[in-house]
């Protein structure tokens, strides 16, 4: 499979901003076994199974496939594991899970890409970088209001002129 074609294919999917589920349906309809689209679809499906979010954005999973692709391009052993993994998925029952070296490689490569992706952060509600926005001092570091406020001898005061606590 050519990395070049795969990148184009992923770029189109990304541009259309398809969710993986929709994307996969489309692939299943269009792809012939053994061609690039089918391989990418299988890889994408495998990545999606790593992190089956209810409301999954497309881009992080496409990025994970791109990273796997890049890894395969520079590491023949990884390329082999990916090819073998995809072949095994195809041979197996529909919906079979990735396994063996292929799974280990997905865990080591794709999961870090996914959990470090801003669109996954958005789903998670994680706000990330805060230096450019002055930290969380004024943005809810102590806004929890469903528990009683700890007493003054257990903590310091919020610097004056800034956020107040929940009380």
């Amino acid at each position, binding site marked *: 499979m050519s990395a070049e074609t795969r990148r184009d294919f992923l770029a189109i999917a990304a541009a259309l901003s398809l969710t993986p589920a929709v994307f996969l349906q489309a692939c299943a309809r269009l792809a012939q076994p053994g061609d690039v689209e089918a391989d990418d679809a299988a890889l994408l499906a495998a990545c999606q199974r790593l992190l089956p979010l209810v409301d999954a954005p497309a881009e992080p999973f496409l990025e994970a496939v791109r990273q796997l692709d890049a890894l395969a391009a520079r590491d023949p052993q990884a390329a082999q594991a990916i090819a073998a993994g995809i072949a095994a998925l195809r041979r197996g029952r529909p919906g079979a899970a990735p396994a063996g070296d292929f799974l280990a490689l997905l865990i080591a490569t794709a999961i870090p890409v996914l959990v470090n992706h801003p669109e996954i952060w958005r789903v*998670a509600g994680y706000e990330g970088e805060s230096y450019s926005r002055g930290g969380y*001092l004024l943005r809810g570091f102590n806004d929890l209001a469903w528990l009683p406020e700890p007493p003054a001898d257990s903590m310091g005061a919020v610097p004056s002129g800034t956020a107040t606590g929940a009380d």
Partner: protein
Amino acid sequence: MGDMRFGLDDDGVVVIIGSGAGGGTLANELCQRGIRCVLLEAGRQFTLADFEHDEFAMTRKFIWPDAPDNTSPPPLDRERPHVCKGVGGTTLHWSGLALRLEAHELAARRSYGAISGAALADWPIPADELALWYARAEEKMGVTGTGDRPLLPGNNNFKVLYNGGRQLGYRHISTGRLAINSRPRDGRPACIQMGFCLQGCRIGAKWSTLYTEIPRAEATGRLELRADCTALQIVHDNRHRVSGVLYADSEGRQQLQHARAVCVAANSVESARLLLNSASAAFPDGLANSSGQVGRNYTSHVHEFVMAEMPAPVHYYRGTVQAGLVEDERGHDPRRGFAGGYLLQAISFGLPFTALALLPGVWGPRLATLVENYTHLAGLVILGEDLPQSDNRVTLSSTRKDRFGLPLPGIHRRTHPNDTALMHHARERATALYESLGARRSYVAGSTGLTHNLGTNRMSRSPRDGVVNPWGQCHDIANLFISDGSQFPTSGAANPTLTIVALAMRQAGYIAGQMTARAI
């Protein structure tokens, strides 16, 4: 950066290896006393602008890259020291909790009695003397809740810790004594609750030798900092005195810096490795190792994360990484079924580190559940005393070498039954703490990163029992000093850095005295 330059053949300088908590502090303290120092640091110089709010990027930037040869039984075989390489050492990365060791921990052998399989020892420093140095170290580092410094305000993660702790009847709960400015101090601003303390504090509110001790030492005109310079071997003369340090400079060229005295503060694993790699005909088992104790009694801490999905949002990542402290289980109470004690410390990570720390190797619905409920997490780390065991040790790898051709460290650790008993107790308490507030799910995860590395050049009164005397001076070699946590005879339950700094300050006065008296 300072522009002081000392000649390689200047044998009047003190050479310090490592610029972290121990080495950076010692350099400043010696320079303030008029002593000329060369500070060798394997890593590069960072500025505040290098500190990105990106967990993976910073790991790549400043974590020590070489993994040791770990021959421990599973699951400990996956552990590796988690320390920094850069000017400032692991004080770039640390989370700032600055705690004293307590009297029972400083006398572990006396307090706990003999425990099979444990090489317990009492610290050969009187607790009341150490208390004076602790106070000076707290002043230097600006520790909150000590002196006149207010505690930091509590973030959301603290509120959960506090309320859960109260449900269990705990009474000693606070935002903790942190070397983080709660108000502007010492030319550095107050903390603005950014989170990402572990990625280097971008505004310098957290104490690090990078922007406190080291520039101050340079301002005396008596420090030459040589970044990107890795010490390879400590060399000695015929009189069994060390005479200099062989190092690789930034271009990889080997240089020999002569020295009047050498102080090793490379963080315990590398410090022991350096002594072992400096073996010679006169010291066939490694420098300063007539006791055979170099590398032994390697302790970390009993160390585990407990995080819980709470019934309502917490956003635990907002604010300081170390956000609170429960001290009620710190004491020695054998009725609990183990010796020594532990602390519960509120802690948080960004989403990437949270996922990888709590569910390493896990994928599928469990990972998705964690991600989807990330905002509801509260978390803490258990930190308990790790008993020293003679065979838990740092050696030299027989198979693997670094890029300079020197053997990498080998590490071998086993868990003592006391550690296991302590961990079970702590895990149960920590889980109950969150369940008392209606936690929907909890995550318990060991850590493979050894953040606290201690004991590998232990301190003892008698030269038979340890590597250094109560001043960190090697029993075998009077002008060779150990200036990091490898001196610790036992780990106690507290994070080690305040003690490392206190010992470095105390050692500086001793070294100056020895030099004045011409004993070294």
